[in-house]
């Protein structure tokens, strides 16, 4: 039931996918995923592959279904139909808990940080380490520093700073580090650079590349095509609830991406 007229996946995208698939099963595979809200079809038969260690950019206009798709992946929405496969196994329950247990972490635009707590407390919120009932601040602080250093987050002065005093890019980094510390295998980021200036955007893009280099799959929603082309390995374009095109970044250029976003087709693609 593919409604896409141009689909790079069918051409050279397929070779990349099978190339990954030969060595290990695809990290996340969506097959025929649909989601209805009453009469509204928010997602229509979406097939998407998210490989480990790659940055996949999910692009599309407002209302194209990007947010619905990531919420479906994160287990917040149950699917109306379709299947989710994780490392070759079919996912059964579709709950946020199942998703986070498997290692799917979502960093929403609001970041869900407590400004009145310091970095360590935010990193461990809900998962605090305790020693006989008392918070084990020393080991939490040590681990926080290690995680931030692993991700090359060098701009924060002290992990005992209140998160409220951090810049937008730093806050994004803390939210991501929080997911990574919890052994996330797939980090989903919703518009990570939307509210950031030039320097901070660069920092966040670096962070995304660092994640990928550690073998973590990153799925980024972004409106900024410059960022997408700067950071992504793969692109998936949504148009009116349908995944109209997906494949390696090399199959696209700025103009074909814009065509796909605005009309769902492109004569210039691949």
């Amino acid at each position, binding site marked *: 039931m593919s409604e896409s007229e141009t689909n790079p996946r069918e051409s050279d995208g397929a070779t990349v996918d099978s190339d990954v698939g030969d060595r290990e099963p695809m990290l996340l595979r969506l097959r025929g995923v649909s989601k209805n809200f009453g009469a509204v079809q928010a997602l229509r038969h979406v097939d998407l592959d998210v490989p480990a260690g790659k940055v996949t950019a999910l692009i599309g206009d407002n209302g194209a279904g990007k947010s619905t798709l990531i919420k479906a992946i994160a287990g917040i929405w149950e699917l109306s139909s379709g299947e989710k496969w994780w490392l070759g196994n079919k996912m059964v329950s579709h709950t946020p808990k199942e998703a986070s247990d498997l290692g799917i972490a979502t960093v929403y635009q609001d970041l*869900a940080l*407590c400004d*009145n707590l310091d970095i360590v*407390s935010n990193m461990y*919120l*809900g998962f605090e380490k305790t020693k006989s009932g008392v918070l084990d601040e020393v080991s939490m602080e*040590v681990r926080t520093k290690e995680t931030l250093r692993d991700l090359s987050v060098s701009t924060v002065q002290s992990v005992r700073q209140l998160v409220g005093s951090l810049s937008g890019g730093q806050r994004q980094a803390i939210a991501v580090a929080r997911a990574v510390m919890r052994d996330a295998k797939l980090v989903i980021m919703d518009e990570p650079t939307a509210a950031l200036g030039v320097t901070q955007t660069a920092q966040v893009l670096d962070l995304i590349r660092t994640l990928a280099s550690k073998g973590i799959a990153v799925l980024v929603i972004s409106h900024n095509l410059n960022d997408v082309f700067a950071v992504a390995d793969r692109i998936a374009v949504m148009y009116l609830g349908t995944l109209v095109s997906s494949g390696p970044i090399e199959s696209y250029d700025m103009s074909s991406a814009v065509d796909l976003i605005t009309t769902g087709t492109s004569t210039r693609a691949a």
Partner: protein
Amino acid sequence: MSTLPEPSVSSNPATGSPSLMARLGGLIGPDLGIVPVLIALVALVIYFEVRSSVFLSADNVTNLFIQAVIYIFLGMAEVWLLLLGEIDLSLGWVAGMSGSIAAIYTNVQYAWPWWAAFLAALAVCTAIGGLWGVIVVRLKLPSFIVTLAGSFIVEGILLYILDKVFEGGGAPVQEKVLSNLTQGNLTPTFTWIFVAAVVAAATGVTLARERARRRADLARTPTYRIVAKLTALTAFGVILAIVFNTNRGTFIPIEGMPFAVPLVVGVLVIYSFVLSRTKFGRYMYAIGGNAEAARRAGVPVNRYRIYAFMLGGFTAGIGGLFYVSRLGGYSSSSTDSTVVLYAVAAAVIGGTSLYGGRGKMTYPVVGGIILAVIINGLVLIQVSATMEFVVTGVVLLGAVTVDSLARRSQNLLK
């Protein structure tokens, strides 16, 4: 691991060592904290001492501390709620309820043992708080209105009980332990032992914590900061002990630290520990800072809200025991509806935010002492009781303004 520089001490590039201003800043910590409030307290004390020579007499200082104890407990009760961005306006009457229950059941008529009456009183107060909490959480009503309504309900029930139980409408304190909460004193020797024990415990805990941080190669608190804090604590303890141990009786000697002081310190230590060293406390702050973030992190937010209301009721209950002890009984004419505003005032003057997420249990201690200083001092310099309300109101207004400004400047940073 040790590459991150110390947070609050910015280095002076010229000398490479922290500048004097940075050191002063380091003493205070990243936010201003309690220091401006302490400065205000000292200024008030100096003012009243200049105006009235008896203000700093041993007798009056002791009196002032007893007075402060009630505000302190009510303020601590309110901090549990303010931390979550909630408020409980019924706490004044809840305290009255606690005091009345304790007075009635230890009375000759019932003659319960003191502990049973205290437990009953505290249980009732905890339950009342819990009830408000459940209503706020389940019906999703603002706590301001729920507890305002609640305050009328508790007031009515309390007055009904007082009229029913005692024809004259009063419950006098007739029990030694209840009376001793505010009338009894430690012996001078035990006063010194207590002060020494507190200083030793504070030193021990601080050093142990520093040792653990050093072992893990984490940034250490600058030594001068530790020394300054412990020195201030020791000096304060020694001065208090000397004042309390001065004979303040006219016919028979009265000396020693009032029981109320170690009891306040005990509750303060327990509450501070819970807030800063346990998951429970961490979640309280998290909910106050960003309830949605706490919920997504798996914190049962609504259950914690109810806990906060229960702890508020419980703590106000403790305050009520001291309240009735000091008044010598509770009657339908002890209708002091301003007490609850003192509770909020003590918490907010100390620096607790009305917007949630910011506050410590030490704040209402300082705030309560400030309130007691103002009220006590104004009486001494013979300002009329009506002016007392005006001054307290102005101070509360000032504290709320500072809170709001602090919040706004924090938001501007982002």
